């Protein structure tokens, strides 16, 4: 329980540290969902497939990008705890990417 509380607080502080990035992300999300929800005929279902493909590509790219962006490399991922954490982070990155592209794909005719 304490660890979850600590994690939430870490996330909260990170958001303040990197506020501009958080604001940009929220603006982008507001923009794409705003556009999509205004449209009457959105292809939400049809957009799932391409969205998943983007998510998979982003997840794979993140496996390389996340270590590089933290002064490290994939070779530093030493044991299963490292792999589990890296994959969880990559899944998170992929989720955000999916959240952005899903409404964009749904706008396609």
């Amino acid at each position, binding site marked *: 329980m*304490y*660890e979850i*509380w*600590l994690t*939430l*607080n*870490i*996330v*909260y*502080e*990170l*958001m303040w*540290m*990197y506020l*501009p*990035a*958080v604001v940009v*992300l929220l603006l982008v999300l507001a923009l794409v969902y705003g556009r999509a929800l205004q449209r009457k005929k959105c292809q939400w279902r049809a957009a799932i497939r391409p969205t998943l493909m983007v998510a998979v590509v982003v997840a794979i790219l*993140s496996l390389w*990008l*996340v*270590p590089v*962006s*933290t*002064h*490290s*490399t994939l*070779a*530093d*991922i*030493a*044991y299963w*705890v*490292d792999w589990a*954490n*890296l994959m*969880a*982070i*990559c*899944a*998170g*990155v992929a*989720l*955000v*990417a999916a959240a952005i592209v899903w409404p964009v794909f749904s706008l396609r005719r």
Partner: protein
Amino acid sequence: MASDESRLSHPDPSRRQFLKLGSTLLPFSAVASSALLSTAQAEAPAKNQQKTRAKIVIIGSGLGGLAAANRLHRELDGAKITIIDRKQEHNYQPGYTLVATGVWPKDKVRDRNRDFIPSGVEWVQEMAIEFEPEQNRVRTESGKTIEYDYMIVALGLQLNYGAIEGMDVKAIGDNGLGSVYYSPDAAEATWKAMDQFRQKGGQAIMTLPNTFLKCAGAPLKMTFMLDSRLREAGSRQASKIDFYSALKNIFSVKVINDEVLKRWRGLDIPVNFEHQLTAIDIAARKASFSLPNGQIEQREYDFIHVVPPMSAPDVIRQSVLASTEGVMAKGGWLEVDKKTLQHKRFPNIFGLGDINGTPRGKTAATIKKSAPIVVQNLLDVMAGKSPSLEFDGYTSCPLLLREGAALLIEFDGDGNLTPSLPMIEPLQDSWMAWLMKYRLLKPAYLSVLKGRV
């Protein structure tokens, strides 16, 4: 100073920072809204605030002092809380090793105390110069007398560079002289000296004194990182790293001591035990060590990392609050009960952080675990009860090995390894431990400081 302050209050994240952030921040955004919600709840006044008219004085506005102030402010209704400390800048000291090894810029370890002091808490911007615990009062440098009902002593420790003949902290960064402990500027200058040294290589000397240390892992981290930086620069073959410990070991927890020594044997870093750095000739780059038999050994170097002897600040050491017997008396550490952290002779006084005369545990991690205990025990005493919580001496140290790898070591006051999560293998090179040090510990530190965790 004014420009310094405005720079600190309006951080301007660079584009590079912005891009780097992406990969780490994004996965967390899914839970961000719930975090906001939870924290907003945490910041609201505690429901069952204890009503009181007590005067509480906190000495020191470092991590310990601010964590206590924020917690007490939340828990108490009507208390007069006063922080005494002249220091304006707040330094994230665990980041010094990253600055001193070229990983972080020094701005990342500089904030303002003002931003962390809760409104309604009085801040006396002076140093305490005399304690009169029999009269429940403290005197400050301007001659002001401040009375209290309860006091938390959290004024950190004193770096005794003066005990090393010829040592001059202003010279850190020049002539191959490094020392991570002194300040953010010294950490940055240490990296300058290390960076210059690694271009060609040569003889490096790493030191360890025979006193209790704040973050006893820092001298070891500096050694691992120096080795790694030399290898990156291709100058390790042309270099020799010698570690000089004034003790019979290099770390007080045996399993970690043995592990690090084993790794250093593999990295060709020999250790000279019971060699105490006593003098340094900065211009001539010569260090003198005293041996147990009284002999003095002189060594030339191209790069040296100086770790000063440490003690309680003189104002405590020379007061009746200092330990009077046992191993803690030598450094004049605050005489607290190692479990309740209550002063052994003055029950209305508690100690928090580096100042405490407790075995091991002069780390931010120790404060993370002990600040809630100290505050709860103080609330108990204020309510006329006995302290209800006990501290186990927990401390932790992400021991940097190189960029991208660290060991996540956690242990209790008896030196037993106590990983927070059972799957963590403390002696395993870990990227996750590195990530914690590199990106997650500062936000955790800020949460402790704000009294939330």
